[in-house]
């Protein structure tokens, strides 16, 4: 179970790292190599984004990765097969991330059956608030999968509770307003937000949007359970190349194991 995997892992590490790729960008081969590097570097879990033509919640970097992947001919079926392959190859939990239309057009039941079969643990669907998610939640439930629900800084208390009631695995706390990519100033205000989230759920909290460097992770340590890095790694790959991933990720997680922290 995803939640217990995370909680167990948190016994060893103060904060876990979840990374993100857009499947098929820059190519399927590279996607595989990127995952390999990330796993080697000790990433704890990963989201695999099935590219969508209208990624409304994504900023320019991920948006462009979506578009390029599609332009190279990426199809959903191939993304699914790819996810299956990596989940069978690497020993960390993988999640799908995509927009609802991808799941909807594939067929929710087919999608979740495939996920189960492929060993994908859950899914993040940023344009699907729980009010619209009935069919999706049922299908996920039926396959024993984790629907990763999202909190946002302006979500009121009652709604946090409601959202949490549908969530499994962990909660994706959107760190700030805006789309993915631009940097977030982690502040006292942010801490209060995380505390508000904590009150409404026992699930682990993952923080995404604008987490990009060691400093951010140091700030999150002790406050959140999972740091999510997306855009920063795509930029790194674009600017420096896949061979720098391991070094970058290791630099982020230095001092993140319990025994090292003092």
């Amino acid at each position: 179970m995803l939640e217990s995997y995370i909680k167990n892992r948190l016994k060893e590490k103060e904060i876990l790292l979840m990374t993100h790729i857009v499947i098929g960008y820059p190519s399927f081969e590279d996607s595989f190599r990127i995952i390999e590097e990330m796993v080697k570097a000790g990433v704890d879990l990963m989201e695999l984004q099935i590219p969508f033509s209208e990624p409304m919640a994504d900023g320019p970097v991920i948006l462009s990765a979506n578009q390029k992947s599609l332009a190279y001919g990426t199809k959903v079926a191939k993304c699914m097969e790819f996810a299956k392959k990596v989940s069978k190859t690497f020993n960390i939990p993988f999640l799908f991330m995509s927009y609802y239309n991808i799941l909807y057009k594939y067929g929710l039941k087919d999608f979740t059956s495939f996920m189960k079969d492929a060993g994908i643990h859950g899914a993040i669907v940023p344009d699907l608030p729980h009010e619209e998610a009935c069919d999706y939640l049922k299908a996920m439930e039926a396959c024993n999968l984790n629907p990763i629900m999202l909190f946002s800084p302006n979500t009121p208390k009652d709604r946090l509770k409601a959202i949490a009631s549908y969530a499994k695995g962990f909660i994706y706390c959107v760190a700030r307003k805006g789309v993915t990519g631009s940097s977030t100033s982690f502040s006292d205000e942010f801490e209060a937000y995380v505390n508000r989230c904590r009150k409404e759920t026992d699930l682990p909290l993952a923080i995404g949007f604008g987490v990009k460097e060691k400093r951010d992770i140091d700030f999150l340590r002790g406050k959140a359970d999972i740091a999510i890095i997306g855009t920063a790694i795509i930029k790194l790959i674009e600017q420096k190349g896949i061979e720098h991933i391991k070094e970058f990720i290791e630099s982020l997680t230095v001092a993140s194991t319990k025994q090292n922290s003092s």
Partner: protein
Amino acid sequence: MKTRGYFNGFGGAYIPEILVETFKELENAFLDVKDDPLFWNEYKTVLSTYSCRPTPVTFAENLTRYFNGARIYIKREDLNHTGAHKANNVIGQGLLVKRMGKKRVIAETGAGQHGVATATMAAKFGFKCTIYMGEVDMERQRPNVFWMEKLGAEVIPVTEGTRILKDAINEAFRDWVANMDTTHYVLGTACGPHPFPEMVTYFQSIIGKEARKQIIKITNKLPSRVYACVGGGSNAMGIFSGFFDDPVELIGVEAGGRGLESGRHAARLSSTDASIGIAQGYKTYFLQDSDGQMKKTHSVAAGLDYVGVSPILADLKEKGRVRFESATDKEVIDAMSLTIKKEGLIPALESAHAFVQAFKDAPKLDKDDVILINQSGRGDKDIFTIADAFSDPGWKEFIIKKAKEYNA
């Protein structure tokens, strides 16, 4: 939100969590005014003093004679301030923005009409204004870009995706999720997440309310048919809504582009190329592939060049209440040309789609029949496109000369 805005399964609000509160606030503001006759009066007053509502219904005597069938009447939304029905919606949303106390508005635009209308409203109401517009549309609707800038709006070219209307909507949402505290997103058509389809329809319903009264006053009866072009669906919903309870056939005309068989069109409800999906925050028929990726669309009219369509129209299509047709680029240029020459009216390229179908039907109807076309906007903005369609030598020469001046 109090309701999810579904019309037999179409609609909804598929929005990122960060916007949920903003939509709640918006829905509340809308519900507050929706049944308030005082608000409607305020709305009508602004439109009748700042724009020139009620817009007239014009009898197209020459076209009627030419087609020798039904009597053709035209609802003149082109006479609105800024040149299209878009003015109605933006003034309505502008009044809501004032109530909500926000100070900045953003909008997407395709034809530029909604952008100009929003920039105009922002100037009048004292809001800051940012307009997102696909690069392709900026090219074909350049005069509107110029005016938006002169109106004090920032026009941001959208270089992502297909670089047209849908991409501008995405970008506007990206702005909104960052700035919703200060900013209202003035969506320009009866699409998007609830409450936009309903709200935009509400504001545009002034067209149908007026038109019904006017046509009955002029002709002593209901029209047999009402025609409107369908981009997102706001002008169509606006005029149709006046006739839902009447025995009147309603016809929505979509962009047939290079022809339905060519695949290069934007016919969502009048072709078999679209399927139900969820994008841009709502569920409707989209032109998408089997993976759910949105397809490239094409129309000579930037304002109809859109992958989705109003969820309310999708419902009306399934119910059979509205008939959907398409008009090709070529048919549109011909209908526009004919209307200009015969009546001295210059419909926008978008509006001309409605004329195409009306012209196809008119000769088959009785001389007693009355048909009503919604001229959603004026074609001035389309001068570059139309000059190109006619390959007008005088115009080309003029532009080449102008360019030489600029290069000198």
